[in-house]
């Protein structure tokens, strides 16, 4: 029954891991772009976009990622779109990422002290000019560490897409565990794969954070 060697297992898992990486990058990049939109809506001057963005964030942070994926997957076929697991996974994780990054970045913008707003206002700058030249450059600096930290959540989130049938690392692992009857080995290797992807990101985010706290402000 064991005609699949450990080497075969590892090779198949590596293939799966490539899809995990691809999905993570897609979701992180598209989610980051969409997250900027969420951010600017969330800190807009007029209340309507602020409310909408807040609702958007609360929905994605207040419901399971798995449910979000199910709704996209089944909602798509409802309006006549044949959505592949890949599209549903990428779309779901992008929306999920945009909500979290929008909220993280809002926190960074708000961490810039009130005095910076007042000083730039007293120099007759417009809201856009204040943002562009004074607030965002400082917020960006604060944002790097938590953004890298959140990328770990994105990578881990991709595992949930295995449930809607997207074949990435976890799904590959499940199939191999069934075929080889070696779940301990297979899921151990799967966990190791995620760890190899996530740990460097976690560690890097911690280093960045320490750098910011320990250094000067420019």
């Amino acid at each position, binding site marked *: 029954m064991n005609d699949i060697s450990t080497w075969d297992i590892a090779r198949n898992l590596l293939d799966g891991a490539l899809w995990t990486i691809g999905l993570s990058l897609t979701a992180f990049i598209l989610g980051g772009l969409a997250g900027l939109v969420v951010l600017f809506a969330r800190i807009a001057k007029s209340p309507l976009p602020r409310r909408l963005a807040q609702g958007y964030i609360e929905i994605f942070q207040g419901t399971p*990622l798995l449910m979000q994926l199910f709704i996209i997957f089944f909602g798509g076929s409802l309006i006549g779109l044949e959505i592949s697991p890949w599209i549903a996974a990428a779309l779901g994780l992008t929306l999920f990422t945009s909500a979290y990054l929008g909220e993280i970045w809002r926190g960074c913008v708000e961490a810039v002290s009130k005095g910076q707003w007042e000083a730039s206002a007293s120099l007759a700058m417009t809201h856009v000019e204040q943002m562009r030249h004074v607030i965002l450059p400082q917020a960006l600096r604060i944002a790097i560490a938590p953004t890298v930290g959140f990328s770990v959540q994105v990578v881990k989130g991709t595992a949930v897409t295995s449930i809607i049938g997207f074949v990435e690392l976890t799904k590959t692992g499940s199939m191999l565990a069934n075929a080889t*009857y070696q*779940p*301990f080995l297979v899921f151990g290797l*799967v966990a190791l794969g*995620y*760890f190899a992807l996530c740990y460097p990101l*976690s560690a890097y985010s911690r280093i960045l954070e320490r750098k910011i706290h320990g250094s000067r402000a420019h």
Partner: protein
Amino acid sequence: MAYAFDFSSVLEYREALVDGTLKTLGLTAIGAVFGLAIGILGAVSRAWKLAPFDRIFAVYVELIRNTPFLVQLFFIFFGLPSLGVQINEWQAAILAMVINLGAYSTEIIRAGIEATPKGQIEAAQSLAMTRAQLFRHVVLPPALLKVWPSLCSQVVIVMLGSSVCSQIAAEELTFAANFIQSRNFRAFETYFVVTGMYFLLALAVRQVMIQAGQRLIARRAK
């Protein structure tokens, strides 16, 4: 061809929904209690560098925080039996929740402990308190109070994450949804309703925890 939404076909299964909700809440409650207990132990070991536990907890925290909950769950449920450890779906789900929350709360509580002002520790030491007394009366209550909002958020995150326990056939809320949609063939409506239920559960759990935290910890911290 316009699609006619039919939510009533979901509500016909309200018994399954209520049952799933209770099990999700039970899973969360057990995970929270034991997870926070591990978190306190881990945080003390880490903050006070109690060898060899500080190292063990450091490795544990990194392993858990850098792997997906679903994989931890599969590893426990499918992997452990192959080592001869018999485990059913509920035991696996509970174990995974406790282990997962334990790692996150270790880090959260540690941050709270490390933020204790040095003067308070020195003041307590000058009153000849033992290390245990110091921890129990001076360090822990304000530390927990400070990080309680983060702990509440983490419990909510873990509760929402528990929806993947349906994959090992633990019959919680998402399992109920899967069951219902396989019967009524109304996948969208079913998941829509259940998503709404999770949303309300998240709000409720957070509220209850914040209230409870203020009652329990705040009183002692004063």
